[in-house]
């Protein structure tokens, strides 16, 4: 299976903009949170929240700082224990799955990732194979094929033998995403994957995730800071504030001045993005207003 | 802002309380021990000694004036010196787990003492004080030059230097039983024995060290905000570090030479001070100056009375008090600040 996938990837990744109609069907089941509660040491951050990540679609979660969006994503990947409610993958309760089983279905790229001193790109990406390997962790040539495919898909194949610590921020982030791809999951969660990247690399990265979604039918959900990019790339937009979802749905319907005011306490105009036609938030500050 | 008068009152109360506690522990240190002496007799003996009257032929008077008074004076000065040095180390490294022992100063002093006894035949505390001093300074120089700037690393460099020097100490001790006997009685850390004679030589170092520590307290407040902020506020960070380093070596080198490597006093006292008066280093320094002697004297008096017929040295009791403090710090939620 691994091998066929790698060839499929190579032949189809050539076009950057696959028309929406040509999308691959959803690769896996829907990940759903039902009435989940999450918190830290007695402080409740999220209490009784429902969220469905539509299968085979890209979901972006936005919201002001400390609104609980990262906590929610970490909870959905089971990096953070639920203090209430449940997670469903398709119709299976996630709490009945072993960690390994979940790791074969749901991948997650957390905010803080540490590359060990001296580790090389191919070796780091190969660690994504962990949930698929046996007791003594021997790599097979199937693993090599998956690693190769992940490196190719993220455009870091040339760097395979380079130490990760020598790479630039943009390259490094691609390598980490390659690691998550090597995990071969149908659902990929990413916590602020574009932080610390310049605008060019942000677009590259979101394009990469989009082609993954379009070609493999991978379900993608990510926390983003940049509202306009979130509106442009997401099929499903979730706006959060103080641990609750204030609006969700198609970005074109969700992202209005009222919603932005409610979530961010910010006055803004929302105009169509001249490139994509998706909503574009133009914030108003205290100065520099022409009108 | 409305809390400011409260805080000022609280700080004043803390200082007054410490002065009273110091008075109490001094009295206890003079009165308690294998032979318990009535406070009235202690008072008589002291006033008699202070007014220059000839010592009466009374056992209690002799014990107070000839044994416990010097021991108490050594305890006060060494306690204050260790606590001030600890405060400075923590301030200058911005590392709440640093203390002079953790930075390898004790191992440096130990090695110097052992070598001076084996190579030069030095055998009296008066003689090896200068070597202890030089050893501590050398170790401090090595540790700071490699580990400066990174909190956790500095402690580990200190531990590594200790591990480098310890085998050298051990190999010397194995070959010389005089050095071994000298070392093991010194290393345990004790106020007993006549060390006040050494104090007569060393007090200038303690005074200079204490004055420098007091002068640095305000600078520590800015250093606590980071090198960049301190520099932006007009401070020469390098100078602060060097002056503080000199003060640390003077204070802790002298104290170590006097009473041996008493572990963890320099660590525990500044933390207790921080709990009592907050984060202002001027207050921390003042409180540490009073609290250090209290803790060391309490450790010493406890060691005297806890066993029926023998003494537990102050160094052991001080470690038993200091280790729980370190563990409490490690368990506290603000650990991220390390």
């Amino acid at each position, binding site marked *: 299976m691994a091998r066929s996938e790698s060839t499929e990837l190579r032949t189809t990744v050539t076009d*950057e903009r696959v028309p929406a109609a040509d999308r691959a069907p959803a690769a896996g089941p829907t990940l759903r949170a039902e009435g989940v509660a999450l918190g830290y040491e007695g402080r409740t951050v999220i209490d009784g929240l429902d969220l469905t990540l539509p299968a085979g679609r890209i979901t972006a979660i936005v919201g002001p700082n400390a609104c609980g969006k990262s906590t929610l994503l970490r909870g959905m990947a089971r990096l953070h224990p639920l203090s209430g409610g449940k997670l469903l993958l398709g119709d299976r309760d996630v709490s009945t799955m072993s960690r390994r089983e979940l790791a074969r279905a749901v991948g997650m790229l957390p905010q803080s990732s540490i590359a060990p001193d001296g580790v090389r790109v191919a070796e780091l990406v190969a660690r994504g194979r962990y949930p698929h390997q046996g007791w003594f962790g021997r790599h097979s040539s199937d693993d090599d094929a998956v690693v190769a495919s992940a490196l190719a898909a993220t455009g870091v194949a040339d760097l395979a033998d380079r130490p990760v610590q020598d790479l630039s921020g943009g390259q490094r982030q691609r390598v980490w995403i390659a690691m998550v791809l090597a995990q071969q999951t149908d659902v990929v969660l990413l916590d602020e994957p574009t932080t610390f990247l310049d605008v060019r690399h942000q677009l590259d990265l979101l394009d990469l995730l989009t082609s993954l979604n379009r070609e493999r039918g991978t379900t993608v959900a990510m926390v983003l800071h940049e509202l306009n990019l979130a509106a442009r790339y997401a099929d499903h937009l979730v706006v959060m504030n103080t641990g609750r979802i204030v609006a969700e749905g198609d970005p074109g319907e969700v992202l209005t001045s009222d919603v932005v005011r409610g979530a961010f306490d910010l006055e803004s105009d929302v105009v169509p993005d001249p490139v994509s036609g998706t909503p574009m938030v133009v914030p108003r500050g205290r100065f520099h207003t022409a009108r | 802002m409305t809390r400011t008068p409260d805080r000022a009152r609280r700080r004043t109360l803390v200082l007054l309380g410490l002065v009273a506690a110091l008075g109490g522990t001094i009295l206890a240190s003079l009165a308690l021990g294998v032979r318990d002496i009535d406070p009235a007799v202690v008072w008589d003996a002291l006033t008699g000694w202070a007014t220059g009257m000839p010592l009466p032929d009374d056992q209690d008077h002799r014990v107070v004036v000839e044994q416990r008074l010097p021991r108490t004076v050594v305890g006060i000065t060494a306690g204050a010196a260790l606590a001030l040095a600890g405060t400075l180390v923590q301030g200058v490294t911005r590392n709440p787990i640093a203390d002079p022992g953790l930075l390898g100063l004790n191992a440096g002093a130990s090695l110097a003492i052992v070598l001076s006894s084996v190579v030069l035949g030095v055998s009296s505390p008066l003689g090896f004080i200068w070597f202890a001093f030089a050893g501590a300074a050398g170790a401090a120089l090595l540790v700071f030059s490699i580990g400066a700037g990174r909190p956790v690393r500095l402690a580990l460099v200190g531990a590594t230097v200790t591990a480098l020097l310890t085998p050298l100490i*051990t190999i010397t001790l194995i070959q010389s039983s005089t050095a071994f006997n000298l070392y093991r009685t010194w290393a345990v850390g004790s106020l007993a024995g006549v060390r006040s004679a050494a104090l007569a030589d060393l007090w200038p170092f303690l005074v200079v060290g204490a004055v420098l520590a007091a002068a640095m307290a305000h600078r520590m407040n800015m250093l606590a905000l980071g090198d960049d902020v301190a520099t932006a506020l007009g401070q020469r960070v390098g100078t602060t570090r060097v002056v503080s380093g000199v003060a640390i070596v003077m204070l802790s080198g002298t104290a170590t030479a006097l009473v041996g490597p008493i572990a963890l006093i320099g660590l525990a006292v500044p933390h207790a001070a921080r709990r009592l008066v907050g984060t202002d280093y001027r207050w921390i320094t003042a409180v540490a100056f009073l609290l250090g002697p209290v803790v060391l004297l309490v450790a010493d008096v406890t060691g005297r009375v806890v066993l029926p017929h023998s003494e537990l040295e102050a160094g052991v009791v001080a470690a038993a008090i200091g280790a729980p403090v370190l563990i409490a710090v490690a368990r506290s939620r603000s650990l991220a600040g390390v």
Partner: protein
Amino acid sequence: MASSPSITTTVPRAAGLRDAIGHLRTARRRRLGMVLATCAVALAALGTLGLMLGDSTIAPGTALLAAFGAGDAGDLFIIQKLRLPRVVAAVLVGAMFGLAGALFQSTLRNPLASPDILGIAAGASLGAVTGLLTFGLAGIAVAVSAFGGGLAVALAIWFLAWRRGLHSIRFVLVGVGFAYLCQAFMTWLLARAEEREAASALLWTVGSVADVRGEDLGVLAVGALVLTIGVAVVARTQGPLALGDDNARALGVHVDAARVTTLLLAVGLVALATSFAGPVAFVALVAPAIARRLLSDGSPALTASTAVGALLVLAADLIGNHQVFGVAAPVGIVTGLVGAPYLLWLLATNERKERR
């Protein structure tokens, strides 16, 4: 990255890339093989030297034959009863400390975590010194009390550092506190004891492989084997753990369970080795640092650390035993003198790298 490609520009043919990845993996394995082979050759050479040298020098051929049970009675006695046990003990103890150090460092994600600094060695020393001086124990009973001391301190660190999971920095700080506490009590015991007894206890705290033989050696070997099998089972979690707790969880590792098991095994190795040989200084800290540098692939370097540890202790014991420094020194002194400067150098150069 200046001319950042779209994701398509640099895709070589998939089969070619797969093979290239395979080659990289093979190259890494070959490098590990080279390191292990070099260590094995050096161990064999130094081991033979250890068998040859002593009060009477025995020719290498005779010595090796005697090690396998052939030769005249005199040689057999010297080799089998005196020199071979010492060589085997040095290798075993070094391997155990090396492996334990690598486990500590990878699972706590701190290249400087080691039983020397964490107070576990000090706890074992305190246990042994208490046994020797306070209860007048001897022989295997000292080993048992050292084992108890090390284990007790490790469990105490654990219990106190545990706060919603086991955080590395907490573990290290609490460990440093215990190191000081144990040190203070040990010094106190030494100061109170009679000179002869104190001197022998002091020697014990240095660490020596001179007297591990017969049954002791058997116990040590069996214990090492059992614990190493345990390590082989948890070893695969170390790769993901090195990427941080979150990544490890996302990859399906039970982080707390993996860390607890790994630390238990590492503590077991340290306590066992320490109880027979004393806290041989710094092997657990330095051997993994050297091994990681030799491999330089970001792996926890468990096998290489084991081999380097064995080599380090065997070499140090030869140096100490044959008076290279002018006196016959127990192995713990020599490893400290070799290990600490290297580590200081490591720290100094690391610092420069971070400033860059």
